[in-house]
């Protein structure tokens, strides 16, 4: 597959790897390739996004043109010229309900 330039949007927590850039362009044919290209350009970013086995971390959501890749083909999701990819860490938290059972 031909590598296409995709625009990647990164929110603040990931900009520490890109020198503050919110939008970067990388060439990739799939989301998996895009993640590897990002790591080559911005070393250290991949371990924030994927676990040791290469799976996208549960709290990381990757959108291709607004659709989360878990609803597409995951890391095998193919990219076309001009696709917009957004990598968004979750906003989450909570109070474990342990005390409520006591």
């Amino acid at each position, binding site marked *: 597959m031909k590598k296409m330039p995709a625009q990647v*949007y990164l*929110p*603040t*927590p990931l900009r520490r790897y890109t020198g503050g850039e*919110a939008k970067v362009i990388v060439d990739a044919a799939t989301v998996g390739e895009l993640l590897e290209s990002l790591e080559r350009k911005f070393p250290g970013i991949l371990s924030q996004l994927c676990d040791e086995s290469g799976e996208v971390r549960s*709290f990381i*959501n990757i*959108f291709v043109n*607004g659709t*989360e890749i878990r609803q597409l083909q995951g890391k095998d999701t193919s990219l076309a010229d001009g696709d917009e990819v*957004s990598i*968004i*860490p*979750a*906003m*989450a*938290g*909570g*109070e*474990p*309900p342990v005390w*409520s059972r006591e």
Partner: protein
Amino acid sequence: MALRLRKNQVEEIIRHAREEYPNECCGLLAGKDGVVEEVYRGTNVDHSPFTYLMDPAEQLKFFKEIEAKGWELVGIYHSHTHSQAYPSRTDVEKAFYPEAIYVIVSLQDQQNPVIRAFRILDGKISEEDVEVQEG
């Protein structure tokens, strides 16, 4: 850096927390340099009294809107419906936005909601002042 909110924004956050009660609510605060310009109500897809997870697609939509307005993400708020306004262990573990101020509204005492603000950086919690202005 203190978090600066207008009185009507504080009321909006408390109203959101009350409407979601007994479940936790969550949302974003957008603006500049710690000054909140707009409160974005999020959807807690956990629909739980003990946890929250903001709808990720909605979160992306809010981020785009915030960027288009030239603002930045100032804070992330959520409610504690049964405990004090202090980050829980899970709040700290899941604080993926160290640049943001984490705002917690407690409805433990329903008549007297409490709002407090924190930075959560590398697992360490530090409290920030909340300045409320008329308006």
